[in-house]
């Protein structure tokens, strides 16, 4: 479409004088459609999920801030519990933000929710291993409880790692999309510049 044709179609469209009341109603509807706000039921659900994050943060924080004396498992436990606390609080903040604003962008926030959820799952597994499995296994290595505990922990880690891998693959897919977007942006800007230079000449 050349410039004169565009100007003509713009003139034609400007001839249309819409009723302001109808237009305002339409704009409100479209805005609502684009924002997709959650209803009270869903918001309450997300508030509950946020509370669960807080509940998860408490044991992590207790352990992270406590001194364990002779049974102190050292740096690994500290890393696991501090990370667990941080991810649980991040979960709480994300859920709280969704509950408070009622805005949920499934495409973007779902990935964040899944990533934080997996991280919490991983640190819970590590917490379980350090607090319940390892102490028993060290004292009674042949006891059936320690064998079962280690098996459970291994299965848990297997599931968490599998889900994390799926998440990484989906993240890579998203990165691919973003790269494609950036390339198109660059291509578009180059063409814009070329057009400007042509006009200047």
């Amino acid at each position, binding site marked *: *479409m050349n410039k004169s*044709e*565009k100007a*003509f*179609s713009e*003139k*034609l*469209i*400007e*001839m*249309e004088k*819409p*009723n302001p009341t*109808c*237009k305002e*109603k*339409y704009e409100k*509807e*479209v805005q609502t*459609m*684009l*924002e997709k706000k959650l209803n009270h039921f869903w918001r309450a659900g997300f508030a509950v999920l946020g509370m669960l994050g807080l509940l998860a943060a408490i044991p992590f924080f207790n352990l992270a801030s406590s001194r364990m004396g002779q049974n102190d498992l050292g740096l690994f436990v500290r890393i696991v519990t501090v990370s667990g606390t941080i991810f649980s609080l991040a979960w709480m903040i994300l859920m709280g933000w969704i509950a408070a604003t009622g805005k949920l*962008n*499934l*495409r*973007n926030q779902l990935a964040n929710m899944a990533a934080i959820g997996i991280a919490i799952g991983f640190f819970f597994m590590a917490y379980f291993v350090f607090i319940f499995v390892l102490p028993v296994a060290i004292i009674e290595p042949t006891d059936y409880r320690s064998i079962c505990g280690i098996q459970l922990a291994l299965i848990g880690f297997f599931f968490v790692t599998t889900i994390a891998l799926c998440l990484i693959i989906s993240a890579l897919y*998203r990165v691919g*999309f*973003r790269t*494609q*977007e950036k390339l*198109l*942006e660059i*291509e*578009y800007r180059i*063409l*814009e510049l070329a*057009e400007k230079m042509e006009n200047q000449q």
Partner: protein
Amino acid sequence: MVDKQAIYYELLVLRCCRGQKEALEELVTSWERRLFYYIHRLVDDEQDAWIILQETWVKVLQNIKKLREPRKLPVWLYSIARNTAISHLRKSYSEKAIFKYDENISNVGDCDSNLSFDNAEQIHYGLGLISLQHRDVLTLFFLRDLSLEEIAQILHVPVGTVKSRLYYAKQALKDVLKKEA
């Protein structure tokens, strides 16, 4: 040569598929006036036209991920708008009754040579006086977003038929404008 407009459409569709609210808003803002103009030519009642436009956006947002060729965004948008308007009109009439075309002449060649339409105000006025079938094809033509091939895709007819429809529609528009003058 790479088409700048095509790249823009591809970029916009990609962003919309990623769920970027800004991109969706940009899509709506950049197309709503044009689509409304077209829909309002098909549907007389303004309130109905706004409702149809809203329904059009619902369909667009639901199906934008399925758009295989982002470069055909204008064709896709006008097709959805037209189909939504037809569904609305179908409640009272059958499609054949809505768009009665005389298909006896399939190709009459380029009819621009002896007809000149450059006064937007006159054309806007004239479009309101001609029949719906003429208005449909002429509005798509005068909005200048689509080539004849693309108009043919929207109307599901061969390009030759579009040319013949345009010829008769322009004649009809010319006649009503002469009478009014």
